[in-house]
């Protein structure tokens, strides 16, 4: 178990190194010049060269990358070109908002997706099943920015039930969570349905029926724990999908999280922030997958971590 964990962490570190390298390389070949952005259009060639030298951007690529890495290992992600603030501070300040939004979205996904999937599987072949599956299809086909704008228009602008945007109370959280969670809810309901149908066909379900157990117990105690396994693995992968989704959702609702930070940084070619956010996201994805793998044996004792 400890050996497994150690190995996975080494793997994770390697993947993060790869992500850092690829992102750094991409930004290096960037045609847009960050120095020009900082210096402004009117700057002289001398000023530009000075700034370039100050930032170390006149050094060879590998030297720049090595310097970035060594700083990173000391917890230093550099300073934002534009805001002159520590990237780590910027990200840390916005992290709670993003985490809150993701938690809300995961809750929304699981609550909606699992319920719909289980009901559809149990009512398989009926109108209820078909209706739920059409809903789930619409869920996976709806662009998040359209959902966001529509929810905003109907529930905030027209009905006034929720604030139009911003951050602070539970009421601020509702619409963004639903917007971010609706896509996953669609996928989960479809997965849960087919997983549940598979499990209900298994021999041990027949055994449970042969024992004379009540239907409710067969579903809750025998079918559900077996059917939920593939979903657990999905939640890990989902973190990656969320990382993209927050850029859109935060921009629609003016949610002050790292999605907005990243988007603004990309528009202003603020390389240290882009690097920082990408790495933090990759970290979240890798850890999410690891966590999913670590939880799995508790649900299915057949899974051994080796």
């Amino acid at each position: 178990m400890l050996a497994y964990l150690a190995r996975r962490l080494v793997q994770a570190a390697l993947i993060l190194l790869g992500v850092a390298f690829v992102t750094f390389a991409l930004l290096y070949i960037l045609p847009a010049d960050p120095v020009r952005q900082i210096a402004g259009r009117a700057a002289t060639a001398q000023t530009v060269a000075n700034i370039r030298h100050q930032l170390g951007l006149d050094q060879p690529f590998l030297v720049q990358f090595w310097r970035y890495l060594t700083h990173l290992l000391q917890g230093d992600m550099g300073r934002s070109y534009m805001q002159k603030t520590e990237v780590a501070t910027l990200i840390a300040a916005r992290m709670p908002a993003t985490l809150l939004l993701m938690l809300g979205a995961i809750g929304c996904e699981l609550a909606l997706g699992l319920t719909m999937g289980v009901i559809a599987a149990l009512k398989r072949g009926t109108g209820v099943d078909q209706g739920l599956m059409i809903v789930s299809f619409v869920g996976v086909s709806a662009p998040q920015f359209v959902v966001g704008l529509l929810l905003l228009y109907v529930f905030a602008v027209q009905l006034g039930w929720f604030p139009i945007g911003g951050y602070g109370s539970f009421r601020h959280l509702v619409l963004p969570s639903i917007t971010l969670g609706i896509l996953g809810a669609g996928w989960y309901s479809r997965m849960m349905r087919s997983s549940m149908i598979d499990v209900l066909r298994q021999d041990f379900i027949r055994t449970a029926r042969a024992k004379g157990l009540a239907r409710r117990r067969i579903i809750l105690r025998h079918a559900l724990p077996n059917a939920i396994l593939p979903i657990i693995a999905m939640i890990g992968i989902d973190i990656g999908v969320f990382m993209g989704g927050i850029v859109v959702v935060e921009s629609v609702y003016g949610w002050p999280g790292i999605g907005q930070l990243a988007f603004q940084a990309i528009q202003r070619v603020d390389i240290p922030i882009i690097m920082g956010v990408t790495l933090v996201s990759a970290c979240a994805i890798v850890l999410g997958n690891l966590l999913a793998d670590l939880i799995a044996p508790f649900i299915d004792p057949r899974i051994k971590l080796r």
Partner: protein
Amino acid sequence: MRQEPVRAGANVIPDYLLTVEALNVSARTEAGLKPLVTDLSFSLRPGETLAIAGESGSGKSITSLAIMGLLPQPAVRVTGGRILFGGTDLAQLPERRLREIRGNRIAMIFQEPMTSLNPVMTVGAQLMEALQAHAPLGRAEARAEALAALKAVRISEPERRLSQYPHELSGGMRQRVMIAMAIALKPDLLIADEPTTALDVTVQREVLDLLRALQREMGTAIILITHDMGVVAEMADRVVVMQGGRKVEENAVRPLFAAPAAPYTRALLDAVPRMGRGEGPAARSGAAVTRLTEVTVTYDLRGGLLQRVRHRVHAAEGVSFDIRSGETFSLVGESGCGKSTIAKALVGLAPFSGGIEVAGRMLTPATVDQVRRDVQMVFQDPMASLDPRMRVGDLVAEPLVIHGIGTPETRRETVRALFHKVGLSSDQLDRYPHEFSGGQRQRICIARALALRPKLIVADESVSALDVSVQARVLALLKALKEEFGVAYLFISHDMAVVENISDRVAVMYLGQIVEMGTRGQIFGDPRHPYTRRLIEAVPVPDPTHVRSPAPLEAREIPSPLRAVGDPPPRARLVDIGAGHLVAMPPAAPG
């Protein structure tokens, strides 16, 4: 063809526990209702064992599910007749009332112990749940009862089993757990659907003995669903023989075996391979086509931080034998003994150490392509070993195409001839594998294996998945082809009776090693190794008058072939006790 029932089941006599009257079960298909069971009637007395015997598709399993109310509704349902149990018609009972009877008064055990237990619940939880569903028991009481049930089925270390998960138990132990679950509430009727089919023969023996002992202790009536006439002869008081959803014959077990009335029953009994005492012609002495010397196959298991090899599975360990031309050499043993591993090594599918020589050529990665022309393989499951997207004619021509033999026209001719040889008509060349029955598919595989005119055909459990009547015909075909083509067989099987019927020489494998080897007469007429004896004695005999010596009921487990690196298993030493009869001297003896 159809016989009148020996005894009309219509008159309900109160001392019957269960009476099935004119039962009809149908499946809903696109083409309308398809009957699965037609007009089936039989009755069962308390404490009696009734066997329902038949081949696949006979409707025997459907019958058992109908009694339990477990048919896969709404696609399959009872369309007529009554199932009277203690005066109530189970076919009419609502689900809620059926639930009170299921597991309580009628219990059931299934064929696949591997999949019939919930993988994510402990054995104890599943047992206690069965008890608590019908009896108002507290946790402690339920646990005590569950433990008692496990003790009743003579499982080793019953206390520990309670907190274990199904995957931690062997197949035999899981079936014992299933039985414990079924008998925990002392039901009046136990339905056992092929309870030993998925088990090894020695484990089957233990489970059959256990079922009989439990029946004696508790007086439970048993309906035993099986395809195995040996199991029928050993277990049943009375027998219902089914074919195509209908009852063809019903009788007490002795008269049924002594004088089968229906032609189908007679054919079925004739097809069952029987164990003699190993008489027959002596082994041929030709030149060796294949020689294995000290063949060892191990699989590495990695672990730890650096993924180093920590353990090895010793699938086959120092196996040596030779097969002479025109001979049928059999490898027998139970699952995991390494017999299939040897087959894979021989056709170049598993890396090995040691020497394999085929037709004078050593098998190495460099020579594997040439060697493959001399060794062909027929797998266990013909459906799985034929590419479902190709026409059977192309499948049989495939080896010729691969080795660039002939033109498309001559290949077509060759395939046509091969089809005739294996008893198929050549106008079926353009059909797909799924359009054939299991036996026909195996014939196609045999034709494909013959296409290159190999010197040796490896038949890995090639008839195990077939019904006995089909099996008998495929075995006859193999014998005839041997004479005609002069090919040698390496016949791999777990079925002692089949092996005795087809082999010239036999090797018995246990835990990756050969423990006894000799001619058919030597192995079956004069078995020396204790494991060989156990295997032979375990086979159910299709003769109800056969008297078996009482055996212990405790489960015996085969030790693991998994070993730490640097700790190879002790090698058995084979000693010639005369006329080429080799017997392993300890340490490879089983516990």
